[in-house]
């Protein structure tokens, strides 16, 4: 009953809002004729920036200006560190400015004395970096605070946690028992900390990116550099700890000899496979997060795109847009968890496969 009333109320409010907006428009607003550039909005959200735009309050943009750290590529050299406030609105500072167009659009470029622009080595704390650091702190808190409880109670066997610590214990134990143990196999204890770190890191980043206002909303895992590092980490773990059987399977697989002797078809395919596995991990996470965010943004933009099409159209499309956005957000929460799970699971499976030879060897030793 209350659910139905709430839904009816929501629909009514959503229908009424654009009517008022339309009335205001007809009263003679400046923005009446402006077209909404959906692509720009979506790309702006998905790409990085040198400040963190918090919101526009009463016509004034409120942003968190982040530090710019660059090393000049020009002859002068040296490190430059200043607030991105100095670069706002296309301003230039110490020869650095944000390129408005061209190859380095949206990035800091250095203007050389002869007028040409080069890209300096850019170690700036961008919006993504800031969110990344914030998410890292959250991950640390989420794990280290419960760990602190265990540290305090390490001599008390009978103590059992409550609340958040208990929840985290349940989550960690569940992941270990149902995901890491079956995927990695015998050596799971060795890789469990890495896989758990990956899981919680991705999960926190995914969930934070779904929060639409300030501390969240930055699509960290939808950035190829972030997923690249995560995939690289898995790649390193897989190959550094891979057993002899794993390498033998790559360079001398169990296939008919003609597939590997004159022209090493299979070894080449297997060798490429080493890289395609983490590459797939990288692209999967990146594409899922980008896609989800783009879908949500497009659905939200429906409201503004239809603003110029009359009050009735706008009102009905607003209802559709909000309902679809709610649905997409729910799906994205699921995807946020799912992608963290899948990344962890596949990393675990690849690690387990690379480990396989070791366990076989042990079994053989035991048999002897």
């Amino acid at each position, binding site marked *: 009953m209350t659910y139905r009333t709430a839904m009816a109320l929501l629909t009514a409010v959503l229908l009424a809002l654009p009517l008022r907006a339309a009335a205001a428009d007809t009263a003679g607003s400046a923005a009446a004729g402006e077209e909404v550039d959906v692509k720009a909005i979506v*790309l702006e959200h*998905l*790409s*990085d920036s040198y400040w963190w735009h918090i919101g526009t309050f009463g016509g004034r943009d409120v942003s968190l200006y982040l530090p710019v*750290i660059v090393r000049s590529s020009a002859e002068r050299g040296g490190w430059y560190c200043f607030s991105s406030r100095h670069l706002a609105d296309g301003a230039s500072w110490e020869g650095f400015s944000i390129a408005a167009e061209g190859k380095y*659009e*949206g990035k800091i470029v250095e203007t050389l004395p002869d007028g040409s622009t080069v890209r300096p*080595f*850019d*170690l*700036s*704390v*961008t919006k*993504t*970096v800031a969110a*990344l*650091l914030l998410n*890292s702190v959250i*991950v*640390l808190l989420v*794990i*280290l605070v*419960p*760990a602190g409880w*265990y*540290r305090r*109670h*390490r001599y008390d*066997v*009978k103590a*059992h946690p409550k609340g958040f610590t208990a929840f*985290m*214990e349940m989550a*960690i*134990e569940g992941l*270990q028992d149902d995901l890491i143990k079956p995927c990695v196999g015998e050596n799971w*204890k060795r890789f*469990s*900390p*890495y896989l*758990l*770190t990956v899981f*919680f*890191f991705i999960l926190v980043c995914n969930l934070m990116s779904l929060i639409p206002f300030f501390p969240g909303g930055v699509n960290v895992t939808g*950035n*190829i*550099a*972030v997923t*690249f*590092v*995560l995939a690289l*980490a898995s790649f390193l773990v897989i190959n550094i700890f891979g057993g002899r059987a794993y390498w033998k399977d790559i360079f001398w697989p169990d296939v008919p000899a003609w597939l590997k002797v004159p022209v090493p078809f299979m070894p080449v395919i297997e060798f490429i496979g080493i890289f395609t596995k983490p590459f797939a991990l990288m692209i999967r996470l990146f594409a899922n997060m*980008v896609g989800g965010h783009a879908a949500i943004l497009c659905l939200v933009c429906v409201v503004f795109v239809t603003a110029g099409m009359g009050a009735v159209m706008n009102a009905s499309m607003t209802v559709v847009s909000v309902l679809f956005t709610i649905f997409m957000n729910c799906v994205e929460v699921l995807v946020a968890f799912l992608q963290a799970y899948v990344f962890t699971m596949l990393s675990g499976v690849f690690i387990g496969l690379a480990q396989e030879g070791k366990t076989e060897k042990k079994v053989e030793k035991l048999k002897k």
Partner: protein
Amino acid sequence: MGLLQPEPGLLIWMTLAFAVVFILLAKFGFPVIQKSVDRRREYIDSSLAAAGEAQKKLDDLQVQMDEVRRDAEKQKTEILRSAVQTREQLIAEARRKAGEEGEKIIAAAKASAQLESDAIIRDARHQVALLSIAISERLLRERLSSDPQSQTALAERLLAEMDPEKKAPEDKPEKE
């Protein structure tokens, strides 16, 4: 497209952040939790084992107790049975003894009664003899006083009657 080109700066930041997070969590996070949970699991397992042991001991004790009880029960019946036996034995013994005693007493009484009755009979016979002698004396005296011949005949006849061994003819002359 810019989206697919990783920024070197971001790569460095991400590597740094992820490495720090991983090292901190792998050192102070998950192993601490895991160790604690493992210890608790061990404790629970050992507690369960101990509880099982105690239960088993209790069961054993119960069995032992039952055995002891059954033993006691058996002993009780044994004792009761032997008591009944003893009682019956005692009673039988007493009865037997009493019977013997009674018989003895009865026999003694019978013997003494026989003796007495014999003595009485003897006495009575003696008395009767004396009386009959006295009577016969009187009779004889009366008869004899009248007729001396009949006195002799009578004496002889009487003597013959009295002496069944026919000693009369011999005695007769003596008495005569």
